[in-house]
């Protein structure tokens, strides 16, 4: 008798609980957002974005799950495997392809359609990066390009005219030599000899890592050998770029902002740092090419976890975060990369800020963009090439030998 009554009470209690639970849930949906690109510098900006969104959408609460870049992709991958991934999260282009290929993302096309939204607001290049095999698995949230930064003081002292968008490798070497002559501790340029520079520099020389249909590696092609020769010559032959020993553990940005390098190849994400740390006039131009121009294009995108139970709310958040004027204005004012939208107002806001004066170089670079050469075993490929590039950089192997060896190892280990 007693147990029966107790059971009844329990059932009633559970019913009430679940009811009130669903009422509460209807009141407020909580979604989690995994991200890495805010970092320490832009954490306040991200918090401001979250606050603005929640004010406009009182029925949604966004929980931020922020992780440093170094650990981020491993954390997300483990969470996806363990079924505890955030409802929506940020991915850079390289990792996006891996995740899309593994079928763990939501196709956003139908979701956008049923919500009565479209992709028109986005910059075309940035949007295309998150299309995988014809399906839009992500929307861009920011992008960045790499430019030639230069120290006007050092150019003046060396009596070299400032770089222009028409510069080529030859101009870099000539200017570099004159600036190098200014002092034992002053270098012409800092670019680095590593995978991330290599895949772009070879494109400037009409080279490529793969053949046209991506079925074979062509890492040791004559164009690529010539390109690597250029990179290595700057360090060893002309020494307009510091060797590892000459760098002595100092960061590239530090060397430039300390006034010890005439030119620096780095991304527009360095604007904030240089604004604060470089105590001399500096500016940027589109990066010099050789046979043609080629500029890095990096993009971060937002995706929705395939297993998420709150896809509609997540969709509202990622659409707002990536393309609303409010969020983009916050992003531009914080100089947190570049918003991926074609809104002329936002672009005007971006180019009107200084330094650098020549901010429009960011948009001019888009004409020559090169995306990272993504394959499924991307990290492994990058490391194989990197080891050989370092051997060429340190003079242990000739560029030709180094690339021959890289080619051999890639053919053995990487599936295309």
């Amino acid at each position, binding site marked *: 008798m007693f147990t029966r009554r107790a059971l009844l009470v329990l059932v009633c209690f559970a019913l009430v609980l679940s009811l009130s639970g669903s009422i509460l849930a209807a009141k407020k949906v909580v979604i989690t957002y995994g991200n890495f690109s805010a970092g320490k510098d832009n954490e306040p900006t991200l918090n401001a974005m979250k606050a603005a969104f929640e004010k406009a959408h009182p029925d949604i609460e966004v929980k931020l799950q922020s992780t440093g870049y170094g650990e981020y992709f491993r954390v997300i991958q483990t969470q996806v495997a363990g079924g505890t991934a955030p409802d929506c999260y940020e991915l850079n282009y390289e990792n996006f392809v891996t995740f899309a290929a593994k079928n763990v993302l939501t196709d956003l096309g139908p979701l956008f359609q049923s919500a009565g939204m479209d992709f028109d607001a986005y910059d075309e290049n940035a949007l295309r990066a998150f299309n995988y095999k014809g399906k839009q698995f992500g929307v861009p949230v920011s992008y960045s390009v790499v430019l030639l930064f230069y120290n006007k003081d050092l150019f003046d002292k060396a009596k070299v005219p400032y770089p222009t968008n028409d510069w080529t490798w030859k101009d870099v070497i000539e200017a570099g030599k004159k600036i190098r002559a200014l002092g034992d501790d002053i270098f012409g340029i800092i670019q680095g000899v590593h995978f991330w520079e290599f895949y772009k520099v070879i494109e400037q020389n009409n080279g490529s890592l793969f053949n046209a249909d991506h079925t074979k590696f062509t890492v040791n092609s004559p164009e690529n050998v010539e390109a690597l020769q250029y990179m290595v010559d700057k360090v060893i032959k002309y020494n307009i770029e510091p060797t590892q020993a000459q760098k002595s553990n100092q960061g590239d940005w530090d060397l430039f902002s300390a006034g010890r390098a005439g030119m620096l190849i780095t991304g527009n994400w360095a604007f904030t740092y240089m604004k604060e740390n470089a105590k001399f006039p500096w500016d940027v131009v589109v990066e010099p090419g050789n046979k043609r121009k080629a500029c890095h294009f990096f993009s971060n995108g937002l995706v929705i976890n395939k297993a998420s139970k709150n896809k509609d709310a997540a969709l509202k958040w990622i659409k707002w975060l990536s393309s609303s004027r409010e969020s983009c204005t916050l992003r531009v004012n914080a100089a947190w990369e570049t918003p991926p939208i074609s809104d002329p107002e936002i672009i005007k806001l971006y180019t009107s800020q200084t330094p650098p004066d020549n901010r429009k170089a960011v948009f001019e670079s888009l004409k020559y963009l090169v995306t990272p050469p993504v394959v499924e075993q991307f*990290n492994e490929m990058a*490391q194989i090439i990197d*080891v050989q590039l*370092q051997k060429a950089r340190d003079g242990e192997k000739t560029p030709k030998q180094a690339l021959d060896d890289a080619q051999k190892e890639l053919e053995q280990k990487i599936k295309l």
Partner: protein
Amino acid sequence: MYAGRGGRRALTIAVFLLPTIVGFVLFSLTPILRSLYLSFTSWDILQPAEWVGTENYRQLLTSDEFWRVMGNTAEYIVLYIPLMLVSSLAVASLLNRRFRGVLVYKVLFFLPVLTSWVAGSLIWRWILNYKYGIVNALLGFVGIKGPAWLDDRLWAMPGIVLASVWKDVGFFGLIFLGAIKGINTDYYEAAAIDGATPWQRFRHITLPLVSPTTFFVLVTSIINSFQVFAQVMIMTDAGPAGATQVIIERIYRYAFQFYKMGYASALSWILFAMIFIVTYVQWQFQKRWVTYDA
């Protein structure tokens, strides 16, 4: 009712052991067995594991990389073990003397043991800096132009060895100190009366009588050396040009950056087999040189 005291005793023991056993089974034994299974599969975390038989082992043992990495690890061990043994014995002998402030020195030598490898590695990157480092400055005083250490493929591994000896000498020194303190002072007195020099006393009394400790230190430090990792990741990131790639670093890279869990598991089991064999061989050879009758 019948089990009586014995049964209850066993039960008590079991209850006390339970937390440890549960922890061990859950967090050690299960992953160990699972990694053995995984080493015969191809698994990228996101998609289900696929059985590939001994393919991972075959690929590993026939790759140039594997043998190069073995060579690097061997280089580390060959440089590290003698240097660490000699330094910690020397430190122990020095600290065994009575002088003012000996306690302070004990603390100073032991401090690196408690320091985290991350902090220690970052400091050593500056100590070994080509232009601004202390080591090259000291070498400069005696007219030697120091190498670029961590940026030089020949000197990167010796640089890591130096940092590792600094980190471990306090720990092993303390163990040796314990052993030396345990030696009956009568032996030294007798030897001194017979006219033995300090070196002879060290060579013929101290050294043989601490040999069980030396054996312990040798076994544990070789096992640890096979697993050198943190200092490599932070000081050189396995560079320059792969000159300091070592086994655990490769396991980490394959598992968590290249997402080849099966391959990484196979490498772990090969590492286990090697450590097992080396330790077994040491155990067999100890009879030749270890004296247990102190």
